[in-house]
């Protein structure tokens, strides 16, 4: 390994940058790497096809499984190309078995499931370590294992995406008339054509990703080793050593090419290295200041010139603005006061309306009798066609009723009694009965405001009267007599009015 010939820039990198370096390498050397991959993969594919032509899925699994067979050649070629020695593909083919052989069994069985395959591949194939040293080596490198795993995971996804893309693209781009494959046939019920297509596309996707995968792992490995073994420092030291000639100090001619600051510091040390080391900070600063104050390092100059600094007559300007603002201010103030007046007016109107509304709807708030008292003047003269004014009635209602009962029959007597009772309630007890009230309403009003005894009598009267008036049922004489006696008991024999 001759680091001087390395064809990539070595520097400490993050793991991701390492992978990117690998991808750049893979792109740079894509064609040889791709051909190398096919060199192994195609025969393997042919062989599996011959052996297991009936089982398409098995062929797919096997060509995937044998990936560790295809990849070593790529790695080998890259490890040479990295140091500027590109072996011919033919020579790689000739040495193919010795390249692939190390730990082939392990690679194809238990280590096939290693998630960092391409990262660890250089350890086995290039360093040819096995067993304990290999484990030890991987432990040292292992700190970047995570990124190696991600490389595998993402690479796998890339492969699937590419494969799907190719298949889909093919289906989409086929003209409608030539539709000899369709999506359903491709993915669900593949015939022999679809199977063959699937395998080819699978191989193609794998072949495209493989160089990137191998190179990514290899670059990750390089990055880690660069960090562990300071390859970049070694390269730089070698260049420096090549320039240094022992016993001689080849400076004077080179001084001009150096950076100014460096030149200053070193210029002192060049002539007398011993003194340079002994110089103290104060002296150095003084010297530096002296040198820097020289005209070559710039000087201070005073230059005066005219420059536009803006409008001068600001007074007039601001005055104008002020008046405008005042005007505007007055305007807004005016609007504000008008608004205030309007607001108070609206409030007053609202209050007035509320008061008016309350006044006009007092009935809702006050209790009922107040309403009645207001309408007090209009005491009814007739109720449902019956005269109830006291003038139309005899003074002794009960006596007259008994007389009528004996002479004209119960109908006239009952009529008189009912009218008498109503007149009594309206004119003596000042009960508010509107002219429009019905018999039932009268009864309810009486019941609500008179003692039970009177109410009971009136209820009986009303019942009899209703039966008579609407049902044409003549009341029983005995009952009428009972009512008359009841009347006398309550109101006294003759009317007192």
């Amino acid at each position, binding site marked *: 390994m001759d680091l001087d010939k390395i064809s990539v820039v070595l520097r400490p990198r993050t793991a991701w940058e390492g992978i990117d370096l690998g991808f750049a390498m893979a*792109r740079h050397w894509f064609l040889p790497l791709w051909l190398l991959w096919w060199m192994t993969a195609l025969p393997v594919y042919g062989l599996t096809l011959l052996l297991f032509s009936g089982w398409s899925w098995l062929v797919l699994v096997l060509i995937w499984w044998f990936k560790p067979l295809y990849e070593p050649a790529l790695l080998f070629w890259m490890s040479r190309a990295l140091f500027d020695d590109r072996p011919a593909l033919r020579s790689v083919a000739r040495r193919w078995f010795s390249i692939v052989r190390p730990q082939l069994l392990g690679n194809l069985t238990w280590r096939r499931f290693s998630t960092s395959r391409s990262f660890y591949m250089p350890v086995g194939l290039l360093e040819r370590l096995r067993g304990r040293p290999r484990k030890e080596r991987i432990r040292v490198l292992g700190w970047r294992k995570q990124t190696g795993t991600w490389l595998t995971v993402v690479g796998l996804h890339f492969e699937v*995406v*590419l494969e799907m*893309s190719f298949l889909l693209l093919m289906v989409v781009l086929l003209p409608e008339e030539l539709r000899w494959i369709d999506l359903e046939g491709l993915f669900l019920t593949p015939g022999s054509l679809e199977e063959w297509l699937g395998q080819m596309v699978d191989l193609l996707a794998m072949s*495209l990703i493989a160089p990137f995968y191998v190179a990514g792992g290899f670059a990750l490995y390089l990055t880690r080793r660069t960090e562990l073994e300071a390859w970049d420092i070694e390269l730089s*030291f070698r260049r*420096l050593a090549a320039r240094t000639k022992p016993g001689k100090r080849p400076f004077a001619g080179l001084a001009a090419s150096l950076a100014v600051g*460096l030149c200053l510091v070193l210029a002192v*040390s060049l002539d007398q290295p011993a003194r340079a080391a002994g110089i103290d900070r104060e002296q150095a600063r003084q010297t530096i200041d002296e040198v820097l104050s020289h005209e070559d390092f710039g000087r201070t100059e005073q230059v005066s010139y005219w420059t536009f600094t803006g409008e001068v007559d600001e007074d007039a300007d601001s005055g104008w603005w002020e008046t405008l603002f005042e005007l505007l201010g007055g305007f807004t103030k005016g609007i504000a006061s008008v608004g205030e007046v309007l607001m108070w007016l609206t409030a007053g109107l609202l209050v007035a309306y509320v008061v008016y509304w309350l006044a006009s709807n007092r009935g809702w708030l006050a209790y009922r009798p107040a309403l009645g008292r207001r309408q007090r003047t209009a005491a009814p003269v007739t109720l449902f066609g019956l005269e109830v004014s006291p003038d139309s009635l005899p003074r002794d209602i009960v006596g007259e009723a008994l007389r009528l009962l004996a002479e004209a029959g119960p109908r006239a007597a009952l009529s008189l009694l009912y009218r008498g009772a109503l007149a009594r309630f309206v004119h003596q007890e000042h009960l508010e009965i509107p002219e429009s009230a019905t018999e039932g309403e009268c009864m309810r009003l009486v019941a609500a405001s008179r003692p039970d005894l009177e109410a009971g009598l009136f209820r009986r009267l009303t019942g009899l009267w209703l039966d008579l008036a609407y049902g044409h049922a003549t009341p029983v004489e005995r009952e009428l007599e009972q009512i008359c006696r009841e009347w006398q008991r309550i109101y006294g024999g003759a009317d007192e009015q």
Partner: protein
Amino acid sequence: MVRACAWAIDAAIRAVLYIAISIVFAFLGGVGIAFILIGIFLIEWFYPVLFEVNSGATPGKQMMGIWVIHDNGTPVSWPSSLVRNLVRAADFLPVLYGFGLLTMLANKDFKRLGDLAAGTLVVYREQPLQRGELPDAAAEPPPAELTVDDQRSLLEFAERSNLLSRDRGIELADILAKLTGKTGQQAVKTLYAYANWLSGRR
């Protein structure tokens, strides 16, 4: 690679957002479905744009330590971010970024079609440089004149001393035997001394 991981993170974040939106608006019936569709549209097209213009990177890219800039190194602007995210649709074809992947693998700067169209570049966000501790040694000026690169590698040698094995350190120091005039552990010590001198300790 990094971009794929960043994309996966972003896709996960977006999926969570979609689910959240769907749950919130699912109670609104027909109007809710309209809101869900509008929300998905807005997130799908403007989620990357907003983040890229604001901070140069979507949350996924931020986590992976990368960001989007113009080809000339200036921060990405509205038009270019819009273009690169609208062309995303072309990158996505035929399925799951098939074209985008191929373009990136074939392109020198890992640009996908959207990056090519908008003139943008996805780069690593430079982390602030962390200088390692220099091993203790009496400062001593290097005997020869050194280029900036030489000085840098001397400093790196000292700073990375704890990463290197003892033998490898000696091996490296022996390369400069002509400069130091010493070999073995003594040479290593001398190089440390130079590094201390270069770092400004006198």
